[in-house]
């Protein structure tokens, strides 16, 4: 049970950590100062959530584990994030579409985790949910502005949605670990989340004049530790300092 809980905490934290890193790459590169600051602030919130999950994971694991060792010293196969969040920034439309899909999912997931039988997870969820609501407001507003904006912004957002939407199916694929967590009252019911996710996404698509992509959901296995080629590049950047200078401190 201890191992399962530990792995589940990694799964919860990894999405925020990898997406947080992707957003941090934009620091100083946002299309305008305000959006630059917004994206890096969202990144910071996501890393805050990661700290919550990994601090607890370290406690569960015991021994030498710390939130930092968990964040910086795992190999690619030991990461359980969904493939969506590791996708490259490409352009602002991709950044917003990726953020929007994640925010919709994450808000629904956190709402259920607030009721988790695990008190620590519930506490982290309460805290994170407040912040995620702000992120979702930001990303859905931008979905509408880009989709219902100029011809170019519309085309770019539609292209980003066409590329990224097929990755969202992975959110709702229930792994044996998630099934176990659901059954013992710690985890979430992904089927319920999917219904609400579909509703919100189609509603925002309508307002943003974005067409629902016809492409099928892709079968991906990020939650089993099998990733796209993107993750290796992210980790070599993300882990560089700890790998090059073991145990260094800020």
């Amino acid at each position: 049970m201890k191992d399962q809980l530990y792995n589940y905490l990694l799964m919860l934290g990894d999405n925020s950590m990898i997406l947080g890193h992707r957003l941090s790459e934009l620091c100083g590169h946002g299309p305008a100062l305000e959006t630059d600051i917004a994206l890096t602030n969202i990144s910071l919130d996501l890393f805050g959530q990661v700290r919550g999950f990994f601090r607890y994971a370290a406690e569960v694991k015991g021994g030498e584990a710390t939130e930092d060792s968990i964040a910086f010293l795992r190999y690619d196969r030991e990461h359980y994030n969904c493939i969506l969040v590791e996708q490259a920034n490409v352009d602002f439309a991709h950044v917003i579409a990726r953020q929007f899909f994640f925010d919709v999912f994450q808000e629904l997931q956190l709402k259920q985790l607030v009721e988790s039988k695990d008190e620590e997870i519930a506490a982290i969820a309460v805290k994170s949910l407040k912040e995620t609501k702000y992120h979702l407001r930001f990303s859905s507003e931008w979905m509408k502005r880009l989709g219902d904006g100029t011809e170019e912004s519309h085309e770019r957002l539609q292209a980003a949605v066409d590329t990224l939407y097929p990755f969202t199916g992975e959110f709702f694929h229930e792994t044996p670990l998630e099934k176990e967590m659901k059954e013992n009252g710690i985890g979430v019911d992904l089927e319920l989340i999917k219904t609400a996710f579909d509703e919100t996404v189609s509603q925002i698509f309508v307002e943003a004049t974005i067409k629902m992509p016809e492409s099928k959901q892709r079968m991906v296995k990020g939650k089993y530790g099998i990733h796209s080629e993107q993750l290796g590049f992210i980790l070599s950047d993300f882990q560089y300092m700890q790998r090059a200078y073991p145990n260094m401190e800020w």
Partner: protein
Amino acid sequence: MVSAQIHIASKEILTALESVSDPEIPVLTVMDLGVVRRVEVVDGLVEVDLTPTYSGCPAMDTMAADITTALNKIGYEVKMKLVMSPAWTTDWISQEGRRKLEEYGVAAPMSEELDLQALMGGKRIVKCTHCQSVNTKMISQFGSTACKALFQCEDCLEPFDYFKCLK
């Protein structure tokens, strides 16, 4: 409803805590901010429960270190614990804290409902900290830090920060 007020028996400890400020909004002390949740002296050791404002707030580590230093200075060892529950809300900022914020040039958080109208509905209700006009508009939902939004006054044309409601 969890109250913002906590009881600290020792005047000396309270004074020390009131000397520790938020590094990002230096006019606010950790007591004004409401992040110190429990203080107890057990055999000369001060146990302090601290709760983060935003979970990723980089100021938290600094505040924790500064609290320890301040209490060490008056001769206490400190045992600091980071508590996540109940989660911090802007309601825990004291009246004194709200006044200092406004004086400093940051508009204090409004109620959840008004906050939503200002941030999402484009309503002009946030008071400019320079000239008190409410003829203001949001420039960005995220300002210089995650907890603030950036506004501009259309009367005096100055920009200012608004401390967003977090509930």
